[in-house]
């Protein structure tokens, strides 16, 4: 029998990274501060999780400016969407397998 845990992605073990992906799946684009408010995190904490996701190719980063302030926005990549959906399916299987 296939091990249900195979489908679970290690990257999404962190609740914060899971949260980021959930937000990005329903929002085309979101900037750093809004994301920080939603997840109620500190700058440094969020930044490290975001760079982890970026390294895995799950999110795209776009740096822009509003006036003279930097405005960094994030969006989900195709690969990220697939990985996240697979992870969801994995969670579902996990729950089904332990009845």
């Amino acid at each position, binding site marked *: 029998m296939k091990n249900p845990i195979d489908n679970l992605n290690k990257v999404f073990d962190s609740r914060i990274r899971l*949260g980021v992906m959930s937000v990005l799946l329903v929002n085309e684009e979101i900037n750093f501060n809004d994301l920080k408010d939603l997840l109620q995190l500190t700058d440094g904490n969020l930044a490290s999780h975001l760079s982890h996701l970026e390294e895995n190719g799950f999110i795209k980063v776009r740096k822009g400016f509003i006036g003279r302030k930097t405005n960094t926005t994030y969006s989900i990549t195709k690969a990220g969407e697939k990985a996240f959906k697979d992870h969801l399916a994995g969670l579902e299987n996990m729950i089904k397998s332990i009845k």
Partner: protein
Amino acid sequence: MRSKEESLDALQDIRKMMERSSRFISLSGWSGISAGICALLGAWFGYGVLARTGGESVSASSRTSQVGLSSMGEIQQLLLIGRLTFAAAAVSAFIFTYIRSKKNAIPMWGLTAKRLLINTMVPMIVGGLVILRMMQTGYYDLVGSCSLVFYGLALVNASKYTLNEIRYLGYAELALGLIDLWQRGYGLLFWALGFGVLHIIYGTMMWWKYERVQSK
């Protein structure tokens, strides 16, 4: 090793984050109730003005075609009441929603609030300008029904960005507004039903559905 509980927790987290980030969910039922009460009070004062100035019907419409000095005064008074009612309703609605967002520990002024506000304000401002022009050109008959119609459209539009149920309030406002378009002399009654009674019903239902459990 992951357990079933952990997986369920994760799924719930995902759902919560999706909802929090896409919809403004702090909108309190009390906001609807308080706005409705303000509207009913406003309608009552408005009725008082109309009764005092000797109108036999419950509407500003039937007599304003003959714009005399006395009816201009009447319209000024009604407009003042309208503005005060709107301000009181907005302030009270804001307060209850603010309290709820504090309770839920969700920042009130965030991404979702901005989105909700923009998408509500577009039909409202356009409607406001149309109504302003109507008053300038003397079509007072249509002011009440058009405010219901534009408000209904704003709510239907807003429903994508907040509690989905507000869509049905929007439909109800639209229906009332459209019926009112073909009625004469019941403007204030429709206004009180749409902005007063419907808000109170909606607010009560939303409170019952979302806040009752937490508030016990």
